[in-house]
């Protein structure tokens, strides 16, 4: 009860939390709410510790001539039904509660944390035994037992709260165990084990530091529960000695005088509530230290190096004659960054065309803006991102500025989408058949019976051997390749004219990748559908694509027919990608793989964005923004030294 056992304890992303403790605590204090909480708690502790020196009156000194006086200069919080000074009672009334709940929490953690570490780290048998003990403690009605114990030890806070601590240690045990197990499986702990560190070294150096913040959170929550439990016991007249007042008892006394003087409810209630709130706020701000949620992990825009956002002067139409099924022009996607009204583009004026029945490859490393570019087509850029510029014309309809209703009509029925991780793309709570049938019925409006038949046909079409049986399975019961087939069937249920496949094979085993790619190609042919394949693998482009767009740091750096681009790349980045392919051809230059990584959007240089990693970088590359220029029929490149590349290829 003290520590609500979290069944799915948030797995701490271990490595990221490993920063100097001082930095972390300083971050807690930076938030005004948690600083105020800490201040309040310190105040309560100090006042409680030195109440006899600080309080203006004795907490039990009665004055029958001064009953129910409201707040005044003599009695800042007034007097109660026996003329006792409320402020003084308040100042004396915290100590018992604080001590009692600190005791319960300390006992719960002293028992629970070592046992939890043991259960989580030492192996199977201790885990089983200790988990059983923890389960047993969950069968105990903690509060009721503490109340019952009051028969034996009336008003003995030490024993009553000690018992609460013992019972609650089961929850702490389970919590610690789950945390420990999550960390134990982290790679760096494996590495430490392989490096020959002893079990004790691993526990104290690698596991304890990581699980400490969540345990601190739990301890704060435990303290606040302990306070309420002890206050409730006092309210029932079981907790503490009437001679030494505490806040719970003050509320009880006040509740007996509620019609005469409702004010008396306020001081005790406020003191208790504020202390509990302070503990909860402090707890949650420690929890927010987890990576990815803290303010420091948010990228800060660096204005000095921000890329110029002037329009490209020369954006020649790709092929003036053929009007595509999908025409994307100067598309930009941006996310809010740092200060108000500032936004950071992640896709920067991207233009491409997809003709009916054609396959376009969108290539680049992670973080180049490929996924955001394609998600903007069916209007699925995740909030708070927005399409900040350009147009997306699909079969004559403008999608970039279309109302939500119009986009919803197009999704699934005209534009399909399959995502990178097929296991994550299927709703884990519904069977494969049920989610497929729902989409089928949505698009065809057919009967349930008809949907069942269509569902089996759809699963058959994507190469699933036993559609009826597969339909009854849940997503976690099938393999990744099978899940991707299901995801494809679901994306095609509305017979779209364009299918967007975002890294459709990346998450799959190598042997399955080719099957899925074949399936996509085959379905595309059969349905005469256009296809956009997002990938970082030029092998996929070579296998499946008619044309290709290479993206780097939010921009298109090269585009053209797949054959041309693969055979005679006109951008050093494409060359680098080609050379990093296993079995890729040896390059004209010394490039083996591309050193470094794609810079984060706020670090994009204002000149050629690839320059810092480019083996051909020269002074000219740093002179200013580089524009996308025509480089032969149907080809464009964004490189000042493209001509040299072309010459080298001919040589």
């Amino acid at each position: 009860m003290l520590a609500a056992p979290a069944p799915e304890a948030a797995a701490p992303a271990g490595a990221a939390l490993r920063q100097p403790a001082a930095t972390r605590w300083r971050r807690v204090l930076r938030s005004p709410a948690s600083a105020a909480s800490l201040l309040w708690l310190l105040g309560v502790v100090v006042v409680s510790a030195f109440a006899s020196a600080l309080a203006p009156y004795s907490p039990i000194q009665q004055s029958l001539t001064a009953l129910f006086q409201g707040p005044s200069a003599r009695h800042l919080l007034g007097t109660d039904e026996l003329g006792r000074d409320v402020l003084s009672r308040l100042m004396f009334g915290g100590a018992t509660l604080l001590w009692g709940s600190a005791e319960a929490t300390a006992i719960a953690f002293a028992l629970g944390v070592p046992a939890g570490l043991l259960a989580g780290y030492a192996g199977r048998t201790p885990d089983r035994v200790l988990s059983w003990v923890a389960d047993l403690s969950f069968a105990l009605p903690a509060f009721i037992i503490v109340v019952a114990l009051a028969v034996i030890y009336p008003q003995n806070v030490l024993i009553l709260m000690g018992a609460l601590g013992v019972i609650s240690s089961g929850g702490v045990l389970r919590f610690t165990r789950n945390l420990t197990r999550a960390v134990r499986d982290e790679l760096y702990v494996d590495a430490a084990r392989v490096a020959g560190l002893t079990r004790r070294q691993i526990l104290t150096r690698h596991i304890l530091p990581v699980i400490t913040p969540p345990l601190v959170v739990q301890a704060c929550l435990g303290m606040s529960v302990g306070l309420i439990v002890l206050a409730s016991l006092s309210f029932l007249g079981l907790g503490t000695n009437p001679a030494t007042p505490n806040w719970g008892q003050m509320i009880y006394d006040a509740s007996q005088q509620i019609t005469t003087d409702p004010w008396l409810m306020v001081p005790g209630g406020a003191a208790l509530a504020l202390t509990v709130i302070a503990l909860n706020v402090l707890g949650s701000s420690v929890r927010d230290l987890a990576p990815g949620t803290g303010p420091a992990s948010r990228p800060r825009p660096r204005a000095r190096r921000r890329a110029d956002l002037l329009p490209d002067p020369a954006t020649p139409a790709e092929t003036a004659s053929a009007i595509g099924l999908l025409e994307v022009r100067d598309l930009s996607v941006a996310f809010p960054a740092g200060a108000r009204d500032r936004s950071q583009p992640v896709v920067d004026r991207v233009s491409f065309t997809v003709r009916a029945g054609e396959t376009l490859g969108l290539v680049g490393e992670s973080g180049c803006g490929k996924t955001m570019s394609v998600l903007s087509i069916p209007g699925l850029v995740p909030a708070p991102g927005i399409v900040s510029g350009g147009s997306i014309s699909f079969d004559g309809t403008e999608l970039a500025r279309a109302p939500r209703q119009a986009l919803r009509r197009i999704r699934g029925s005209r534009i399909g989408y399959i995502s990178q991780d097929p296991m994550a793309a299927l709703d884990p709570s519904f069977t494969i058949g049920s989610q497929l049938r729902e989409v089928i019925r949505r698009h065809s409006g057919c009967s349930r019976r008809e949907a069942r038949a269509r569902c089996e046909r759809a699963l058959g079409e994507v190469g699933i051997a036993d559609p009826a049986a597969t339909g009854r399975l849940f997503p976690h019961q099938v393999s990744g390749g099978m899940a991707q087939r299901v995801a494809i069937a679901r994306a095609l249920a509305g017979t779209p004219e364009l299918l967007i496949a975002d890294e459709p094979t990346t998450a799959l085993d190598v042997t399955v990748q080719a099957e899925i790619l074949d399936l996509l190609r085959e379905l595309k042919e059969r349905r005469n559908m256009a296809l956009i394949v997002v990938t970082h693998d030029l092998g996929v482009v070579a296998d499946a694509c008619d044309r290709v767009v290479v993206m780097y740091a939010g921009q298109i750096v090269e585009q053209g027919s797949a054959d041309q681009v693969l055979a005679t790349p006109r951008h050093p980045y494409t060359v680098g990608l080609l050379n990093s392919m296993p079995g890729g051809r040896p390059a004209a230059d010394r490039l083996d793989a591309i050193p470094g990584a794609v810079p984060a959007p706020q670090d994009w240089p204002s000149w050629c964005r690839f320059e810092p990693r480019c083996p051909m970088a020269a002074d000219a590359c740093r002179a200013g923004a580089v524009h996308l220029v025509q480089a032969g029929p149907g080809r464009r490149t964004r490189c000042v030294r493209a001509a040299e590349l072309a010459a080298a290829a001919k040589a």
Partner: protein
Amino acid sequence: MLKMALGRLALALPMLFVVATATFFLQQLVPGDPGSFILGKDATPAEIRQFDASLGVNRPVLAQYGSWLGGAIRGNLGTSWTSHSPVTQTLLAAAPVTLSLAVLAMIVIVPLAVALGTAAALNRGTLDRFLQGIAGFAIALPNFWIGTGLVLLLAVDLRVFPATGYTGLSDPAQWLRSLALPVAALAIGPVMGLALQVRGAMIDVLSKDYIRSLRAAGLPTRSVLFRHALRNSMAPVITTIGFQLLGLLAGAVVIEQLFNLPGIGTVLVTSVSAHDVPLVQGAVLLFAGVVVAVNLLTDIAAAVLNPRVRGR
């Protein structure tokens, strides 16, 4: 599924036995003999001895344990030392009050919390900030403080509801009226606590890949939110609901006192004050049984909602 439920039950029953045994032996630690406490200072030693003998407390402890356990298995939890009526009967008479309180509170808590939490997750603006602010206070204020405030406001000042007392189910309207304030006092904290949980779970689920994929497949917002997102966010929430229900039982002990309701909590508190050991034991055992049952139901509900657990 059935196998899992039976497995859980097989674990739960020994636990109940352990709790029963622990309860019995703990109560043996009560200092002094019951006669001198219950009869008071005026009783003669002979009277006390006779009283103790009538309760059977001077028999060997193991013999007492044997007969108590034997009786407990058959549903006979002994006789009260103060009222001399059967413990089982006393508890059964009080059970409907506590049960009404807990069930009504859950009926209020779950739908309200799900609605509030979902609304806050979908509208991350004013409503969200409001919920978080209010929730902080509602969770921090003890239920007896909230209860007293409600009495002052709605019973004393406005006279909408009775301040104390209980009316049986035979008069449903009065029954509801008599329980309205206690239920509100019990529910306000948990509603806010659960709403925060629902909000967190919903925000988490809405960022999932499958939600985007379902939208991309053309499902209407209604289905994506209320069929798929809500269903998935309920799986972690259901465990919290179980804990809330157990928390309600503890809360009921206090609230029954505050509103003078003759429920199990009242039986427990009065028997504790009166050193009526058999009644205390019976009440603790009954609460333990409810805890075991609630945990079992929570596990089953979680399994129903989460196909990955169900398969195991």
